[in-house]
């Protein structure tokens, strides 16, 4: 482990000096513990070190733009802390100090279902107004990312796809690729609505269910509460939602005693139920 740590820190210092388009040969020549390795041993070590750095949040990506003469590795993954550091309105040392105190009480090293390793690249693409592509539920999507939001223990990307704002669960985003061109749009959204369907349906539904069951399941789906009445431990709710999949999951989890909703919305929920 000692050598691995040394190599990884050396890699980071190398990108400190020259942060863009570093060739594989340059990396090998400038890090002593790589230099003496055979080609195959170097390749194995380098790939392993890249994975370790990725787990920490660094992305070491090979950039090979067909329109550019330069090619080589770029290091990214620290743009947020760098932007905070440059912001004159923020007392950086105080920020860092708070970060280190909080870190002692929360454990961010644990395994997490959230596929949030992409978040740094996505955030850069949002800020630089780039287009991204990724695989989502077996389809390739090419979208303009607008923002991210957290809901029910999952992070979602809000992105414009064919001039419509849609939400994508970060867990299900694979093969993310970021476009090269910046400033491709000047759009800004004040809010990101969850949109599971191509066409939005605002559903109003009345429910009668146990209070505790509502409390532990209410974050399953995005909704607003219009009316809430409590009698003993039973809640009478009227809610609005656009999230048909989430509403169905909520109904399955909470098993309400009664449901009242307009006839035209029932087939939508039954369609999801029948897959």
């Amino acid at each position: 482990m000692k050598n691995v740590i040394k190599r990884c820190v050396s890699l980071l210092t190398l990108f400190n000096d020259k942060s863009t388009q570093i060739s594989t040969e340059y990396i090998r020549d400038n890090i002593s513990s790589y230099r003496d390795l055979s080609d195959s041993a170097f390749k194995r070590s380098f790939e392993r070190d890249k994975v370790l750095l990725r787990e920490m949040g660094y992305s070491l990506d090979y950039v090979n733009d067909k329109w550019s003469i330069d090619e080589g590795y770029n290091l990214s993954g620290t743009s947020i802390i760098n932007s905070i550091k440059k912001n004159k309105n923020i007392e950086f040392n105080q920020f860092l100090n708070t970060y280190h105190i909080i870190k002692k009480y929360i454990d961010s090293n644990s395994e997490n279902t959230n596929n949030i390793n992409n978040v740094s690249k996505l955030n850069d693409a949002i800020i630089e107004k780039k287009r991204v592509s990724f695989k989502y539920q077996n389809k390739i999507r090419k979208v303009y990312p607008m923002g991210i939001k957290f809901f029910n223990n999952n992070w979602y990307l809000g992105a414009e796809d064919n001039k419509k704002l849609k939400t994508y669960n970060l867990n299900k985003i694979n093969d993310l690729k970021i476009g090269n061109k910046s400033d491709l749009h000047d759009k800004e959204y004040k809010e990101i609505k969850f949109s599971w369907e191509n066409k939005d349906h605002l559903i109003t539904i009345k429910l009668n269910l146990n209070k505790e069951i509502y409390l532990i399941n209410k974050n399953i789906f995005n909704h607003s509460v219009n009316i809430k009445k409590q009698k003993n431990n039973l809640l009478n709710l009227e809610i609005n939602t656009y999230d048909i999949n989430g509403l169905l999951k909520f109904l399955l989890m909470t098993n309400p005693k009664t449901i009242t909703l307009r006839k035209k919305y029932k087939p939508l929920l039954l369609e999801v139920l029948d897959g």
Partner: protein
Amino acid sequence: MVKKINLKKVGNFISIIKLKQIWTIDELLKKVDINYDELLYLLTILSDIYSKNGEYFLDFDIDAENNKILFNNTSVINDMETVTDLELFKVYTLINIINLDLNVDTLTKNDINSFSKILKDAFKIYDLENENEIDSKNINLNTVTTIEYIKLGNDKPEFYDVEPLLITSNLEGSVLEALDINDSKIKTFLINRIISIGDDINQKSKQKYNQNDIDVIFDVKDDSVLLKLNKYKKKEKLYEAKFRNKNIAIEFFIENFTSANVISPDTVKVDVMNRVESIRALLTK
């Protein structure tokens, strides 16, 4: 004894020593959360690294007599950023799951709020204000309290006297690790399933659910459901996973009904299908 020093620990150490030049050794050990041997181990590794210009990566002097350590930080170390976006994002996520109060003299609630606000602005994060009810769970770390909690697979709350220790996450979601005062054991509580927190909870008698674990065979319509399982085996076109008890299995397959179907055992399959049919009946009325 040197416990496992990994790259994250090294990154954390580098980030901390940049905060100031002279440290008392005790303060540094506390801040980095390591012991003296681990400090020496870290210093040995880092002092063996040079920049490509031959400059030392880390230059330090230990004054053991006065319990002090001085870092002559070079430009290489000052320019290196070891706090990654991913790390900040994970911290942001965890501190926003719950209204967190740390029992620390050097940190106020305002500090945490302003830290969170800086991150929210730096990341392009949209929140859920005006769209949903905001949770008002307020956890005082290191202060004994009572929590009302519904275990996975159950629908009745139980009450625990706990000392909250740490906020973290696992495959089932965000988690509070806390010392159960009555059992003297550290237990994990899913934050989503904590109904209320506080000393004035009207406690009811505890109900124990002792059930055996259960293996469930299922097929999958959406592979992402497998990410929610700790362990599973592939059996030709089907999958098998172990659950802590029958109720947890039933709840898992109800929650993921559109992504996975139970094949066996019937005890789980029947309960899941009963729930589905009861919702179908409500929707076809």
